[in-house]
């Protein structure tokens, strides 16, 4: 900042903008590098725990394929076929190598490729989760901002009450209520099933709306509560008083000073909410009869298909890590505190 100001005004504007862009880009790259350095150990530990699940579970593909009366020799043969007779760390290395190349192994129950099984389910789940996130961001930020702007009035109290109410509703309870009222009672929405966007945008939206709404309540509640709190706190800061004294317009104060400083905690909450969203999809997909990622996790867990469960967990970890990286980058770009390197 000081360098651009120190330059004489004769410097062409283009060069100054280029310098600023380079500066911003460098900062973004630095944040990215720092976040990646943080998440690599997270990923390693999480995948190790995931892989250790099989040894801990004592399950084997032989049980699934041969039944309870299998002879020890037959079991040993099947286990050797799956490479389970090798040392634990060798198996882990092999599996991890596959992960890095996008291979998650084959299912114990039907020998299908797990990556493609998860891929099909993920399309459903990500449509629902993305829609839920959009609802959560729009309504969470809207309600939180409105409550902060009208703080201590009846609007604020009404919003706070509403947010408290929806924050105690678990996703599957919301789902059941939505199905009972809007699908079974009023026939406004289909109660179960899924259509791809290729089959028509309208039907697709109709099928994912209810699950997305059910998932979004938690996000709306947490984001709104967090945003209201930090915005109200930001309004009490000295720099806001200073801005008022300088005669800046309320709109400018809100966008330039209050919002940018108060946004941090709400965005961080959004990053933390994502794992919960992925987890809750297990339940909502059950309620709405969607053959998604969560349903696949539940089904393969119930049938004891360990590689499939491991694949699901790894994919969910990757999703969470990537989402958090994005949130960190946005945070670094938006809030003034993170630009000072705090």
């Amino acid at each position, binding site marked *: 900042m000081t360098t651009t100001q120190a330059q004489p005004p004769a410097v062409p504007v283009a060069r100054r903008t280029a310098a600023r862009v380079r500066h911003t880009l460098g900062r973004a790259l630095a944040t990215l590098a720092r976040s990646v350095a943080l998440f690599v150990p997270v990923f390693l*530990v999480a995948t190790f725990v995931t892989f250790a699940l*099989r040894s*801990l*579970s004592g399950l084997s593909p032989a049980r699934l394929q041969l039944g309870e009366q299998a002879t020890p020799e037959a079991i040993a043969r099947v286990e050797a076929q799956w490479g389970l007779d090798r040392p634990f760390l060798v198996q882990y290395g092999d599996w991890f190598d596959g992960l890095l190349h996008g291979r998650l192994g084959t299912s114990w129950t039907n020998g299908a490729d797990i990556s493609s099984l998860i891929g099909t389910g993920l399309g459903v789940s990500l449509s629902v989760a993305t829609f839920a996130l959009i609802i959560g961001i729009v309504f969470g930020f809207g309600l939180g901002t409105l409550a902060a702007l009208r703080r201590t009035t009846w609007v604020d109290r009404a919003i706070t009450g509403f947010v408290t109410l929806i924050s*105690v509703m678990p996703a*599957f309870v919301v789902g059941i209520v939505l199905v*009972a009222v809007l699908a079974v009672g009023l026939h406004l929405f289909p109660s179960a099933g899924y259509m791809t966007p290729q089959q028509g945008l309208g039907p697709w939206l109709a099928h994912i709306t209810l699950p997305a709404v059910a998932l979004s309540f938690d996000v709306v509640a947490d984001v709104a509560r967090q945003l209201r709190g930090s915005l109200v706190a930001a309004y009490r800061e000295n720099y806001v008083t200073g801005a008022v004294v300088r005669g800046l317009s309320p709109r400018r104060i809100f966008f330039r000073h209050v919002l940018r400083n108060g946004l941090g905690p709400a965005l961080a909450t959004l990053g933390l909410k994502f794992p919960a969203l992925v987890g809750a999809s297990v339940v909502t997909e059950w309620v709405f009869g969607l053959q998604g990622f969560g349903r696949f996790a539940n089904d393969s867990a119930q049938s004891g298909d360990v590689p499939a469960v491991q694949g699901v967990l790894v994919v969910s*970890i990757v999703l969470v*890590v990537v989402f*958090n990286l994005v949130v960190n980058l946005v945070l670094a770009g938006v809030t003034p505190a993170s630009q000072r390197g705090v």
Partner: protein
Amino acid sequence: MLRRVLALPSARIAVAVLAVIALLAALGPLLAPHDPLATGDHPLGAASGTHWLGTDYLGRDMLSRLLDGSRVSVLGSLEVALTALAVGVVPGILSVYLGRAFEWITLRLADTLVALPFLLFAVAVVALLGNGITQAMLVTGVLVSPLFYRVSRAATLAVARSPYVEAAVIGGASIGWVVRRHVWAKVLPPVAVALAQTVGVGFVIVSSLTFLGIGVQPPAPTWGGLLASDLGYLSQRPWAPVTPALLIMVTVWACNVLADALRDVSGEAGRALVLARRARDRRPAAAGPAPAGGAR
């Protein structure tokens, strides 16, 4: 601290609600008017004198099943909270004192646990390690323990930098003594807040797992299981899910209110709040008689 919390009306309501729920869990099976597993002749019956909440698709009494199932939910959520407490608090305090290596490792572990979608993990672990609610809740407890780790670490950091603790350390106090004498008192209030929150979270998780049919054997009733079986018969009995859903929501709400109340009364802000309340309560009492006499 307990007395200060109970001075808040919201906390009194929350504690009363939680006490009722706990009582249901303790006495539920005894209070049940019918055998929760006995099938009857009137499947999907409406609420009546003999069956207050109606009957399910096998003609079993809903009220009895609800009362009988309360124990699983309450014990499960307590187990989550206590496991998280046991796993999280001690490393949280020690991370400030045991050097940078320990600090770094525990911080990374906490990051990892936060990144895992705990419902998904609970489902996976229960299904693979054996179908028991106890295992599921232990795992979930470990997965939510970073909350306790962070909370106790933050509180410890704040105390460790305060002048009186530095004075004690300069005066030759051992770490153990400092922790017992100074840190413990500062860590306790935020941990209590986290505990109340976690019981609520645990309640949602137990309900979700039992809703999926994980952790309990089929005929045994649970609140989540009741909702799941109601879901299949929504067109015949649209009102059936209301009671179990309301019970779950009220319990979670009570936990959140209690957590908020605990947060409000702890620390400096809490002391100011209680003092302000006391002053306000006293003022009308002192000022009351004067205008009454003066008006006449």
